[in-house]
Structure formats: C-alpha cells, structure tokens
C-alpha cells in the first residue's frame, strides 16, 4: 500500500475549479436571499414535488391569466442548487407566456445536459450560472426539481 493512502493524504490539495463553478456567487445569493419565495394566495396552479433520495421539497405556484404567467412563487426546502434554481426560475418566468415557459424549460434542460449553446442563451438570464451542474450528474435532479413542477403545471395547458 502506498504511504499516502495509509497515512492520510497530501496536505496540498487543490480544489477542483468545477466546484467554484458549481457554487458561484450568484447561486449562493439566490440560495441565501431567494426571490419570489412566497405562497401566493390567489394561485391558479400549485404543485409540490419532492426528491425522496435527498429530501428536497419544492412547491411552485402560478397565477396564469390569458396564457401568461402573471405571478409565480415557490416554497420548500433543499440544497443550494434546488433552491437557487427555483429562485432564478421564478425570476425568469415572470410575465412569460406558457409557450415561452415551455421553451425556457427545454433550453434549461439542454444546458444541464451539457449543451454549450444553451449555456450561452441570454433568454436563460441568471440561470446560466447553473451550467456548471452539468459536470455533476447526481446534482442535475436537484436543479430540475422546480422545473419538473413547472412542467407538470403547464403541460396540460400547452398540450
């Protein structure tokens, strides 16, 4: 056995830059100061989904008027990725039509699966900060939880 694994590890370990890309300032900001994290009383659409593996729970609420998202909020608890994704999603969805929301969902999903064009797409706004999640396959479901909520809510409408 080599010395390193028996006695511990080299003291001078570099932190992979992918970690800093994953936990960017803007993501930590949305995690610690979430936008639109409020229950909306007059919601027209409401759903809660959870991830039983890690215990994350996200609720997404919408006020849809004439096929347009007049208001959107979220609730729940979870890791920085799931909470920041929900916060940024609500920010980006405000005022969008349902068709635009569906398009946003697919662009975001493409970005998480490593599509470099999607990662540059300005329609995603702050959400582009989550492009680093694509390097962490087990965390993709964290970022997608709130989008799965959105999908469940508007799929019947746009189908």
């Amino acid at each position, binding site marked *: *056995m080599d010395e390193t694994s028996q006695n511990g590890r080299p003291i001078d370990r570099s932190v992979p830059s992918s970690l800093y890309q994953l936990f960017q300032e803007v993501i930590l900001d949305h995690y610690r100061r979430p936008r639109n994290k409020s229950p909306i009383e007059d919601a027209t659409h409401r759903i809660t989904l959870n991830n039983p593996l890690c*215990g994350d729970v996200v609720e997404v609420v919408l006020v849809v008027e004439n096929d347009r998202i007049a208001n959107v909020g979220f609730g729940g608890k979870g890791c920085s990725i799931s909470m920041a994704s929900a916060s940024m999603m609500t920010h980006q969805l405000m005022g969008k039509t349902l068709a635009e929301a569906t398009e946003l969902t697919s662009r975001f999903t493409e970005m998480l699966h490593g599509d470099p064009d999607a990662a540059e797409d300005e329609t995603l706004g702050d959400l582009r900060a989550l492009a680093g999640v694509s390097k962490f396959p087990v965390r993709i479901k964290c970022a997608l939880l709130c989008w799965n909520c959105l999908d469940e809510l508007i799929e019947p409408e746009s189908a």
Partner: protein
Amino acid sequence: MARSRLVSAEAELDIGRVRADFPILERTVHGQPLVYLDNAASSQKPAVVIDAVRDYYQTHHSNVHRGAHALSVEATDAYEAARGAVASHMGAGSPSELVFVRGATEALNLVATAWGGANLGPGDRVVLTKMEHHSNLVPWQLLAARTGAELSFIDVTPDGELDLDDYRRLLRHRTKLVGVTHVSNGLGTINPVEEIVRLAHDAGALCLVDGAQAMPHMTVDVQAIGCDFYAFSGHKMCGPTGIGGLWSRREILDDMPPYQGGGEMISEVRLEGSTWADVPQKFEAGTPNVAGAVGLGAAVGYLQGLGIEAIEAWEDYVSQYARRRLDEVVGLRVYGPRTGRTGVFSFTYADIHAHDLATILDQQGIAIRAGHHCNQPLMDHLGVDATARASFYLYNTPAEVDALIEGLQIAASIFRLDT
C-alpha cells in the same frame, strides 16, 4: 464495551495491516486518496471475503441441500459452516436458530409478516421507537394496515436517547411486541437493549432488536441481551451484499408460519397442501445466497481474528478524535449523545446544505452520506431537514478525520462562510 481502553487502542490493532487487507482503500476518487466515511450505509470488504466468494464459485458451487453429488455436498457444507460460524459469533444457542435472509430489512419484514401476521390482531400494540430505520417502521405500518394492530413510538430526548419513562408508560397498554434498534443509524446512540428487553418481558411482550448498526462494531450476544429476535445485515460488517440474518429462539421459530413458499422450505408437497421443513430451512424458500453466506462466514472470521474488543477500542479512539475535531469547527453541530455512542456522526454545518457538503467532500475523495439516512421521522423530530453523516469503521484513521476537517474548511471557503 471496551470504552476505557483508549490508550492501548493503537497497540492492539495494527491499522497499517488492517488497511492493507482492504484492496479498495488503495484507489483514488477524483484524483484523491479515497477516504471512506459512509460505513453506516455499507462497509468495504477485506480480501479474505472477496477471495472466499471467488473460491466458492471457482471450486465448490452447486445448489445446496440436494446432496446427490460431490459439489452439492461441498456447497451445503460451506453454507452450513457459515451458518455455524455466524450463529456462534452472535451467541446463538444453536445454528438452527439463525435464518439466512437478504439483510436486516428482509429479517424485519419476515418477523412482521410471519410472526406479526399470526400473532397480532385488532387493538394489539407494537411499540417501536422514533429512531427506527425505515426498515423497522414500514413493515409494521404495512402489518398494522392488514391486521388492525396499533403502533406507538418511544420518544427520543433532545440528546438523541430513548425516553425510558415514556417507554414504561407505553407498555401499560396491551403490548405484544417491542421493536428497537440496538444502535441508531442516524445518531450512533447505543440503546440499553438489555433493559428494554427486560421491561418488554415484564409486560408480557416479545422484543425484537435491529442490530444492523451494532453487529459490525461490538460484541453481540443474543442470549445475554435476552431478546426474542435479532436482525442484521452482512454488508455492513465486511460481508457481501444480499446476505444477512435473523436470529430467534427455536420455540418461537417453530411456532411461526413460513414467510415465503417454494423449494427448500418444504417437507412434503401435495396438490391439496404441504408441510414445512424444520427451521431454519422453513424460512429459506428458494435457492439461498450461498456465496453470500460463505462471504459472511469469512467476514466473521476476519473480525474475530482481529478481535472484536480491539476493533471497538480502535473505533472508539478514532471516533473520540473525530468528535473533538468536529466540535472545534465553528458553526458545526453534531447530533446525538456525547457518550454511549458509536462512530456515526450526523451533523449540520452553518447554512451549507448536507447535499452540497457531500458534493464538495466527494470532489476531495471523501465519501459521506447526506439526507435523512432512512430516518425521516427522527429527523423531523429533531427539527432538521437533512444532515451530513460521517460514519467510521475499523480501517479509518485519525489522518482521515483530519482530511474530513480540511474538506469542511474548503466547503466553508466555497460557501464564503465567515470563519
């Protein structure tokens, strides 16, 4: 318990040799030496266990208990020798009192289904605790829905210990069975199972102990504990996955109906009905996990060779060091009792979510678990959504504790904590 033998811990266990016994500890993860601290979920395997499984398949494999040819005899002998070794390891009166199952989960389901189905009816009470693993909760919920039996739960103190006064109160009702974990998988609490069993028996109830987190780490003597059922998993104690055991007293097993039907478990089968084989075969329908049992037998031999007390002393030494280092980290909170515990540390760190901590540590080769650890009611009770859990075993070292602490410092830096 060898809780006072810290000074000699290092001398008793040659940690360098122990680590050399586990081939996986030589690998790297994300370019860093593996620091495996997810032992409460599953332990790694020493070469003797891996070799025993391979040797069984290469040289001896056949179906067991058929006996018409040499290989079948050899496979049966190996399987039954493993049963004997494991049964004796846990203080069983006879090998026939040990039923091989897939793991603790199946053992607990077996008791709930076979014993519970035959012995519990509407209004009968099963007393469990608020710290049970989901595997000693959900089978009873399923049974309660089927039979009308009622479940109640012993309270857990803020320190993570069972409230025995609450237990005594619960026992006043018509209790048929008490089910308790020997060691909490979420908090590391070692429960006073002897006393819990005694109180259960005084109240006329049987007592089931879930030993999944105890068997790997301490001397377990089912007769000294006095319990009626004891369940455990092989894969947490250096054995293969898919093998574990249920120990019970002969007269209880004899009275229980079978759990599953099929080959192996029958005496005579006719179209209009069948009779059952003797225990333990009565509960082992189908071709068993022979290679798993052989591997588990080798694991028990390995642990005994090192000495369970020496393992306990070493783990205690490393765990106390871990506790001291974790307590030094500002903003970190360890759950569970300070004493009377094993090396299972569930913690939260400032506002860094457990899942994020796990990702950051993983990138440094450090494996921990994040979430509710199949302990959701306990986490709700403690008021935490998710915790990170570092759990130690015989091959972990103080240097690996240091690596964990360094990893936490890097997490603090990534999350811009004021430290």
